[in-house]
């Protein structure tokens, strides 16, 4: 690790200013659980950390019935998965937040950081995509909103321009009779990077699927929203056949590589397995069985 400068921003505008002045070698520091590792291993040339944790609203959780959920981008994971409203309405977020890092990491790491790091295997991103999330971004040219499904552009790359950072994340209020779920496959039971992961949101109208979103991760250069999987479900009864059709759509959408964490065949297969499993889990939640 090289020596780096540290600056603490106390407002969004100040952070934007610091990041703009810092240029390409300035990086946002929230929990630091990814970016400090990058600096330490000299995988990024970093000269300045701009700490955004002390900006009001960057840490906090706000849920309004009918409005939805807003998370400060730097809100640590343990606050997310312990929050009663998140637990009640966004179980997929709870499931993903629970497995990112160990307990100590979860006191620092945030979903905003997980998104900004833009790993293809990020555990939080498929859950956030499935829940229809939006990233609220601030930068030198003002504010803008980007759907989380469109945020990542390549491994470790995303839509953020120099000087931009994520201020908050928001999620619509789930419909009545809906459920969400997220799961990943890892060879161990903890402390591992997903071989494949999947998140779904499912709203039921009686036995018919009223709405659905299916997202998969670690099977392409970015986490993927799979519209074809949703199409295989929406307007149809939720049966083994329609679930299998959604799983098949996920397998088709997957475009994985073979690496040390898994083979392409294994990942494509797991995309189908996990989509089936999370659909069944989300359906049980939508029906109030769980």
């Amino acid at each position: 690790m090289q020596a780096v400068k540290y600056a603490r921003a106390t407002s969004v505008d100040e952070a934007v200013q610091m990041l703009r002045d810092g240029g390409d070698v300035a990086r946002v520091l929230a929990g630091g659980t990814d970016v400090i590792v990058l600096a330490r291993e000299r995988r990024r040339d970093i000269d300045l950390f701009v700490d955004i944790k002390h900006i009001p609203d960057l840490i906090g959780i706000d849920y309004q019935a009918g409005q939805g959920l807003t998370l400060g981008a730097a809100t640590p994971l343990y606050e997310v998965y312990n929050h009663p409203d998140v637990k009640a309405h966004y179980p997929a977020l709870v499931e993903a937040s629970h497995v990112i890092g160990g307990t100590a990491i979860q006191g620092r790491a945030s979903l905003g950081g997980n998104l900004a790091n833009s790993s293809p295997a990020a555990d939080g991103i498929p859950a956030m995509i499935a829940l229809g999330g939006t990233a609220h971004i601030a930068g030198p040219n003002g504010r803008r909103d980007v759907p989380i499904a469109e945020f990542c552009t390549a491994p470790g790359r995303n839509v953020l321009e120099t000087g931009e950072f994520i201020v908050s994340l928001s999620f619509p209020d789930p419909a009545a009779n809906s459920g969400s779920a997220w799961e990943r496959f890892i060879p161990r039971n903890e402390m591992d990077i997903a071989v494949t992961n999947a998140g779904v949101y499912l709203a039921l109208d009686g036995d018919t699927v009223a709405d659905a979103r299916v997202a998969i991760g670690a099977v392409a250069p970015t986490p993927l929203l799979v519209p074809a999987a949703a199409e295989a479900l929406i307007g149809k009864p939720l049966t083994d056949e329609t679930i299998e059709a959604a799983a098949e759509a996920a397998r088709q959408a997957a475009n994985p590589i073979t690496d040390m964490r898994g083979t392409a065949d294994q990942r494509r297969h797991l995309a189908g397995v996990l989509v089936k499993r999370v659909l069944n889990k989300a359906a049980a939640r939508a029906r109030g069985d769980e």
Partner: protein
Amino acid sequence: MVATPEKPNTDKPAYKVVGTRPVRPDGVDKVTGRAEYGADIKLEGMLYGAVLRSPHAHARIKRIDTSKAEALPGVKAVATHADFPKQESGSLDLGEGSANPLWLVENVLAGSKVLYHGHAVAAVAATDLHIAEDALALIEVEYEVLPFVIDVREAMLPNAPILLDDLRTNVRAKGVDTPKDVPTNIALHMRLEKGDIEQGFADADVVIEREYTTAQAHQGYIEPQNGTAFWNRDGQLTIWCSTQGIFSVRSQCATLLGLPESQVRVIPKEIGGGFGGKLTVYLEPIAAVLSKKSHRPVKMWMPRADIIRATGPTSATHNRVKIGVKRDGTITAAEVNLAYAAGAYPGSPVGAGALCALAPYDIANQRIDGFDVVTNTPKTQAYRAPGAPASEHAVEATLDELAEQLDMDPMELRLKNAAHEGGTNSAGQPWPRIGATAVMEAIKNHPHYTSELHGEDTGRGVALGFWFNGGMESSSSATVNSDGTVSLILGSVDIGGSRASLAMQLAETLGLTLDEVHPHIVDTDSVGWTGVTGGSRTTFAGGWVAYDLGEEIKKRVVERAARMWDVETDVVSYADGVITGPPDADNNPRSMTFKEIAKQLQRTGGLIAVSATSRRNTQGAAFAGHIVDLHVDRETGKVEILRYTAIQDVGTAIHPSYVEGQLQGGVAQGVGMALNEEYYYDDEGHVVNASLLDYRMPVANDLPMIDTQLVEVPNPGHPYGVRGVGEAPIVPPAPAIRNAIYDAIGVRMYDMPMSPRRILEELGPQNGSAS
């Protein structure tokens, strides 16, 4: 013919200290963080060292230019291979194995060639680590990249890239011709043979032959390798490090640096795990050279990626086993062929693997061939029962298939062929009292083995494991303090609780409590030569010394009491810490406690301080037997272990909690090797999973509670019946799991690790990945 095994003698005397579970003497320091490890060292004027490593799996070094690094402000010294004296080929004892100084120094800092990705090439000492790391980037190395070979079978082919131009096969196999004088990667072909193998197979009713592979697995100690050195201007070298053997480090450093051993002092710091991986030196000699050049102390430690890439994993292996049996289960013949990858330089544990392969069984006709093969991977080092897990896996897995074909209970098949006292091992040496049968019987009768197994896709497997255990030399001294306490000075570093286990044996001998014996681990200048903490030898050999010290102290105490009472020594006795003599002139009984006489030692002829050295080869072999229940998720290929029982003949358990801990630890590492641990090489021969994130050792919640059952068959060659216990338990987990996977889903696995990916592939399209 197979003799009927006799029931071994499991009687042991009633002890007062041995067999109890006191708090360990080093416990408080370790749990409060006060224990000093290598990373805690801070010396005045200390520099920090860093190592430049090869980006190639195999390359010739054409040129190294360190001038720009040397010119960087803050850099105080740069070291390359050229800074070491030239070595001659030879053999240095490392405790569990040996090293050729010629290759050892090349592994410490590469000479003309780099032989694996991560091979050390140069090193820098600077005023802080960041400067040292910056300086590494300024060192220019010109490489001529060469073709490389990772796989052991490919390395044996005639057209394989050759790693060491001068290497020729050492043939130690009767009936095998020495090959022509051509370069090769096969360093050794050894053979063990007894009986008539052809006749043995001819006598068999069923013969099966199977092939197996095992993957490179790292010891996975949590504490990184480290070494701090100070080379004084008078040529005295002091080294602080984390090692399993201070005297081994001393002899390696003295040899590599061209110093007399008396000029090298090695001070052990606490050790955070070794498992065989901390017997050889890596950083210590480099730190010494950097210190010599800078005249300042130099501290070094390894980043995790370097530990995985450049310190010893165990061998990747490719093994073939052929076994013939009669219908009644009698094994008539066994043929074993072992190819072990040594890594960059010769010295895989194939010899030990060969001796262990068939050890649990009495097989009249057998032939075992072993090949030691160099590959472009890190030089392998000892890892808990070095060589045994791979060879025994192949045998235990094959026996499971034979039991199925014979429609026999797998434990019955093993019991029918169990090794026993009076039989001989694969080298033809007779077995002393051993616990093979006792362990097999204990499995068969264990409630785990006899319980019903429920649930879909669940299975049960069993396997045996064997390890010799080491004897070797240990030294200690002991001083009787005036308050009746005893200081015990040790040359063995404490990895598995040896402060407690050795002090307990001295306390038992003297009839004292453990609180009255204080163990203290010292440096190489402060105690006699002592072998490494490895080979499951420490509690055995150190216990012998503690016993000898105790007996000597007792003898001197009795002599003193006799002199004080003015009687002959033979009428004075010592028992339970009390010295008793004949009644005095008034017929009053005469006795003194150890404490009472200790108080009077100084004015009755002087304090008592004794030293002892022991080298005994009466260590007892260890047999382990494991039972595992598991579930396989057919959709993902993931194995979940539901229940695990480890049974072992442990001789006498000095401190049963630590013995149980050794069994559990062995199982944890064995499960890791079985299920997920492997080195992942990319197309360029790079190790890409060099982190604890991607080198998938089991974490706590990957393991169930591991139940243990200690079978105590005291070793007749030890005063307290101690056998080594630490290594045997890493052997059975992989074959037990493999056999259980078959029981669960009907799939026989031949390649390790038995990862979810491999199990999915074996399950095939109907369940697996091609859907």
